[in-house]
């Protein structure tokens, strides 16, 4: 029993440390003007998030976030930076009040909304009591897959994943239409 308490304590400590890092990174991103630094900080933000996902027992999501956020997104942003050759954000002429007001209202609404949200890690919250138990208890016998995330993703909610593939496909086509002038030729013979 004692061991469990120690583990929980360590988990909480890591959780708080990572959250603090994330908050600092987010503030730095707002205040920095050098775009290269911003992109690097975003990559760090993403990697920390992935770490946090591991702490919160979401290995699959952590894996994907590390590959996509810290990997692909960062590479694409750097590629854009190389193409636009614009490394410094312009200093705004005046400080707009409206965005700050909108953000404060939105954030306030969210804090208001957490008033009766189940506590963090609560094992008897509705989200843990409804729908989820079947995935945990029966996915192995129903789908033969030990990783329940894969079972949900590929089988129970496989149609969402078809949508996800369609989203990626749309993006690919879209990027080619927008900046892939060279890639539009289907092969060397076809004239354009």
């Amino acid at each position: 029993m004692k061991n469990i308490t120690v583990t929980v304590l360590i988990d909480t400590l890591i959780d708080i440390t990572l959250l603090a890092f994330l908050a600092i990174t987010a503030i730095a991103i707002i205040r920095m003007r050098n775009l290269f630094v911003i992109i690097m900080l975003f990559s760090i933000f993403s990697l920390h998030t992935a770490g946090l996902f591991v702490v919160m027992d979401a290995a699959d999501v952590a894996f994907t976030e590390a590959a996509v956020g810290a990997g692909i997104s960062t590479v694409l942003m750097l590629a854009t930076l190389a193409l636009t050759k614009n490394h410094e954000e312009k200093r705004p002429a005046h400080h707009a009040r409206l965005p700050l007001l909108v953000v404060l209202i939105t954030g306030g609404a969210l804090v208001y909304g957490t008033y009766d949200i189940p506590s963090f890690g609560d094992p008897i919250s509705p989200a843990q009591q409804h729908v989820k138990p079947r995935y945990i208890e029966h996915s192995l016998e129903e789908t033969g897959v030990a990783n329940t995330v894969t079972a949900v993703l590929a089988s129970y909610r496989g149609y969402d994943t078809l949508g996800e593939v369609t989203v990626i496909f749309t993006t690919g086509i879209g990027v080619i239409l927008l900046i892939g002038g060279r890639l539009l030729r289907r092969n060397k013979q076809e004239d354009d």
Partner: protein
Amino acid sequence: MIDIIVGHYNYWVVIFLMMAGFYTVISHGNLIKKIAGLNIFQTSVFLLYISIGYVSEGTTPIIAEGFTRYSNPLPHAMILTAIVVGVSTTALGLALVVRIKEAYGSIEEDEIHDQDKSL
């Protein structure tokens, strides 16, 4: 009081992160920085979902001997899809930024706006 803080601090920091991203999107005029802000906004929402799925003293939802308490796989599956949607939006947005730079010679919103007005 302590109970509320212990049970909610995670959500509150996540809300702060979301709002930091949201603020970057709506207050900054640089097109690349807006996209970075949007990414932070979305990534923080992913944190909200994973926090919802978290169970204390639980483990990753890969069924194995000796474990009985798993975190909720449904938010994980949803967020995997949402991450893909996020990177798709980023890629398209950046492609548009490249084209805008070629067409206007700038990626600052006010400079682009001025060019359009002078026509």
